[in-house]
């Protein structure tokens, strides 16, 4: 049996003493999976992603990338296997879109070297894949939030990763950009990329992810296919809110908050 693409084993983490964010969390995601991690604010979703990406170290337990402890893998080597897309990205100074995307080649370059023709080709391919090639010369600052996220996604692809982790990739984006990002992720996943998305948007998760992990109080409390997992009692308990769960034409769940007395029509 092959090792999971990424795995956390009994991970504990805290930002302040005696206030553990993650409390013995374990999760294993197989190669080629498209997983969504959901859970209320403060449950530890973003922290989990940082630990899986190796940018934060657990207090105890371990994070593994293809079966190897990520803290023992040289950072540059890890960066060739795994890419992280944060919730939002700001650059200091006016780097162009092309320059930002080329930074994805950092783990492949040496010291002061400039990127070569091959690197530029890979970057261009990534920009075409996310539809931002026409912005190449523009300053990253000038772009809207949705355009930036597509650029950052292109930057992540330029790393040529096997695993892509995304933290709320669509949280401040309009409908078109939400659909755009998930369409690209679905394509990439079909061609073998392991995708893990942390999200608050249960409906997008239900539509695109093949597996959902529910996180509460620093632990994974449930795992399953969207249709099994997104049921009314679990979602209510998870978020502490009354919800209605419907099914769309394809049987995928749609979750809406229940309008209270006097609220809504």
């Amino acid at each position, binding site marked *: 049996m092959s090792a999971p693409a990424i795995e956390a084993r009994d991970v504990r983490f805290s930002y302040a003493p005696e206030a553990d964010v993650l409390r013995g969390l374990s999760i294993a995601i197989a190669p080629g999976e498209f997983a969504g991690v959901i859970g209320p604010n403060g449950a530890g979703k973003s922290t989990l992603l940082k630990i899986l990406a190796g940018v934060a170290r657990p207090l105890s337990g371990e994070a593994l990338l293809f079966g190897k402890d990520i803290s023992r893998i040289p950072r540059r080597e890890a960066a060739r296997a795994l890419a*992280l897309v944060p919730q939002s990205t700001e650059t200091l100074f006016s*780097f162009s879109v092309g320059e*930002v995307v080329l930074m994805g080649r950092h783990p492949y370059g040496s010291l*002061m*070297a400039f990127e070569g023709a091959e690197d530029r080709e890979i970057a261009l391919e990534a920009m075409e894949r996310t539809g931002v090639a026409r912005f190449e010369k523009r300053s990253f600052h000038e772009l809207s939030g949705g355009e930036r996220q597509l650029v950052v996604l292109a930057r992540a692809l330029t*790393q040529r990763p096997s695993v892509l982790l995304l933290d709320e990739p669509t949280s401040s984006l309009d409908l078109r950009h939400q659909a755009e990002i998930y369409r690209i992720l679905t394509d990439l996943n079909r061609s073998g990329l392991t995708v893990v998305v942390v999200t608050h948007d249960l409906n997008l998760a239900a539509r695109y992810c093949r597996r959902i992990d529910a996180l509460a109080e620093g632990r994974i409390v449930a795992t399953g296919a969207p249709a099994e997992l997104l049921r009314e009692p679990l979602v209510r308990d998870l978020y502490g809110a009354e919800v209605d769960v419907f099914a769309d034409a394809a049987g995928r769940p749609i979750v809406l908050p229940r309008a209270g007395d006097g609220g809504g029509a």
Partner: protein
Amino acid sequence: MSGRSRLVLGLVSGGALLLAALVVCPLVGPVPVDFARAFDFSLPAVENQDREIFFRLRLPRVLLAAIVGGSLAVAGATFQALLRNSLAEPFTLGIAGGASFGAVVAIHLGLAAGVLGVPAVPLAAFLGAVLSVAIVWFLARSGRRVPTVTLLLAGVTVNVFFSAAILLVNYLADLSQVHRMIHWMMGGIDTVGFDKVVRTLPFAAVGTAILWIQARSFNVLSLGEETARSLGVEVERTKLVAFGAASLVTGAAISASGPIGFVGLIVPHGVRLVLGPDHRVLVPVSALAGGAFLAVCDTVARTVLGSGELPVGVLTGLLGGPFFVWLLKTRSREL
């Protein structure tokens, strides 16, 4: 234009600017110097006034200005990248306060003899710079990491503390000492012979080389520390090495010339406007352009009053203040 061609363009034009400054500036001054006579080595030195002025007074001074200017510009570009703040400059983290404190203490105690041929005042200034940087670094540490925000706050705090300490020493000192202290703190290129040049150059050269090697990581750091880490940058190690190298470069410069403000702000911004923000281009070209910039500023400063010299720190301050306001008003989106 690709990064590599921008680097070549920057090195060639920056190098040409610096070379022009190094040739022209020593010829400018109240006493005209005959270039041909200055290089006429057949006359004995004492009889060749052109040679004395050119080689003992003006050339060392122009070279020192270039080294100090290049150092401050490179350090400025580094601090802007490390602190993720394009209004940062080499003195943002209290290094000028520490160095000035060292200098005023040495002046007050009347220390004359130095160590290994380095006179007491620049030596004390250098030690003060190193001390202040070490204090800031350890104050800002939180566990294994040194967050940028606490680094800035620690820098401001240390600067305020040293300012008060300097005032105390000023208060205790007699008038002639106070005059020397204030003159030192104005920042000026004041040198006879090549001693200061020889002392400062190794720091500038080695420091710039170290920072140039880190430049690729500085680019990635501008996307944020977490992203940089996920792209394979050893963030804390990079910060420590770059912070250390930039501080030594600044400390050496300041011990030779006193604090000369705004060079570290103006020059990197100018280079960025022309060649873009890529640090692999910015760091080396800032070194050349900063050298040319301060060499010219110092030449203006020593001639503009006709009789007597204006400390160049006063001039760069007068230029830099409005520039800072302009940056704040027009480019705040990038800050």
